[in-house]
């Protein structure tokens, strides 16, 4: 693996010029919006704590079949484009209610850049995915960048049209599972990245690359 440091610097500069990502916040289900808990320009946070046990900032309240549901932020950022006209209205599922302008963190920048460096396993179908439970357990214990996988290892399980299909590593060699790009049980679009692997022999290069990003993009 060769790292083109010029190209890297260029990419970092492009990202620095616009270090944001806009996340739309949508209704998980139907219901009436009975209250907005935020105003435009307000700073909100996603879940915090070691186990992400502290929930994010409340954004709005949805009432359905007499039950109130507080919709909370899952990102850190600034509230934008609140559709205030929807207050006290019945809304459908997956309706965008507001947006959160999120400033990319060092970790997210690293993930983003690694996408073009790592050997990425992409979603073969628009489907739901989970990591192979054994690998998930190992990652929980040892962390990312430690777990070794080889050709033939069952990496993921795809739930698709009511069937579960295992996804195996078909590439020759020994790899380290370096990044996870999906959330378990959420729908992943076909061809979106699922996990990023690094050949064991390339690990030193990758660590240099990450160090370089860290130097250029302090927390």
């Amino acid at each position, binding site marked *: 693996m060769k790292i083109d440091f010029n190209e890297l610097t260029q990419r970092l500069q492009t990202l620095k010029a616009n270090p944001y990502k806009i996340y739309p916040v949508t209704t*998980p*289900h*139907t*219901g009436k919006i009975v209250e907005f808990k935020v105003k435009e320009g307000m700073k909100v946070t996603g879940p915090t704590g070691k186990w992400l046990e502290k929930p994010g900032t409340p954004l709005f309240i949805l009432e*359905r*079949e007499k*039950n109130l549901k507080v919709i909370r932020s899952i990102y850190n950022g600034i509230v934008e484009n609140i559709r205030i006209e929807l207050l006290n209205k*019945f809304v*459908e*599922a*997956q*309706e965008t209610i507001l947006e959160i302008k999120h400033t990319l963190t060092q970790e997210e920048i690293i993930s983003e850049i690694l996408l073009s460096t790592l050997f990425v396993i992409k979603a*073969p*179908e*628009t*489907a739901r995915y989970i990591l192979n439970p054994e690998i998930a357990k190992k990652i929980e214990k040892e962390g990312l960048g430690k777990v070794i996988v080889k050709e033939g290892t069952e990496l993921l399980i795809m739930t*698709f*049209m*009511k*069937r579960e299909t295992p996804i195996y590593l078909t590439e020759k060699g020994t790899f380290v599972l370096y990044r996870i790009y999906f959330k378990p049980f959420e*729908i992943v679009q*076909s*061809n979106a990245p699922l996990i990023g692997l690094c050949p064991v022999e390339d690990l030193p290069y990758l660590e240099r690359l990450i160090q370089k990003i860290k130097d250029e993009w302090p927390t």
Partner: protein
Amino acid sequence: MKDRVLIANRGEIALRIMEACELLHLDYVALYTKEDEESLHVQRAPKKYRISDYRDMNDILAVADEAKCTAIHPGYGFLSENYRFARRVVKRERPLIWIGPSWEAIRDLGNKLYMKKVAHELGIPVIPGTINPLYNEIEAEFKAEELLEEVQAQGFHEVTFLIKAVAGGGGMGIEEVKNLEEIRPVFRKIRAYAKRLFGEEGVIIEVKIPKFQHLEVQILGSKKGEYVHFGTRNCTIQSPFRQKRIELAPGFCSRFNYEFDPQKVEREIIEYSLKLAKHFHYDSVGTFEWLVTPEGKYYLMEVNTRIQVENEISAKISFIRDTQVNLLKEQIRIALGDGLGYTQKDITFKGMSLEFRLIAEDTKRGFIPLSGTIQRFSYAPKPWLTLRTHVPQDKPYTIPTQFDPNLALAIIYAETFEDLLERSKAFLEELVIEGKTPKGEPLVTNIEFLKENLKYVYQFL
């Protein structure tokens, strides 16, 4: 107040319910999820709401209230046989009409074991097997030994067992076992699968009927205690996972030779089905599924407490005072409180009908469901052909991956068996379904499988 029907389903059945509502001059409201935006059932409905999931009871009821609906049609699949939902629909603060049988009937008949027990007590033949769910593998092995002795005494040879999850269905959570030694490992596997998928671990053991035809009786009951039947259907041609692929009405065909009197068997399974329906005060459309052996023995398998996919082949050959019946229309009308307005004597049968289920599946590789984009879908319209589909024919359609990749139903009518077969072949020959998988390969469908299997219609398989 005029009734307004909420259609709590997707795809072609949602479209057929819309059509039935229009025939009855009823308002209706459709539901859809984000993945289904391109479906014709969404395009066609003048009033529709996006919900999170077709199984989300709260979303469905919230929309019912918001859209001022008075009745819910659950279609098939999803919540259609969920008695808790049916009960909630009729018992909530703002009650709605449930277009289906009473929740009690759904509960009792949907519980296969209880149904089997009651049927057995009423003298209705059921498939030899355990009556109570098993949770313990040693007990399972013991019961299997008992069962083996019992059926060997009845003249069964080379007995195969079916290990089934009580909560399973549609071919899910079922496995075959030939030797008693295999009972325990397979039992463990099915129990684990059932726990994971259905949250209910109970398992039953049945004897596999080696050769049979799958017949079913179409029943209609009203809230006024009236009962009629619309004859039988033959659904023997299925995928290896026991999902129906070709269905025919009526259930037996006079062009074939049987070792038994088919008219007598048909009469008896209809009588037994009506007997069970009456026992449960069944007040909607319902299907009673039977296995018939080459010797003319028959066993009640299960009851489907909903409208079925293949209802229309019965409708095509059933006439009420010379007018062709529409079972969805009858189901809705009766749920809204109408009496039948006719008796069995007014119903006559004429001709034969066949249904193909057109599905994006690779029948050569374990019937795996396929996703992809349909780019071309064309067929030759014929007076004897009814095509039911939610797939648009004027633009590409991407098959959502959350559901079964059913593309269309083709319902063919003819007066004679020879014509029916000829028309069915002609339809498949002219049908074109082309598309691409996400990998860019040509999308395969089950058309070839249907062509090859036409030779097995009305055979014991």
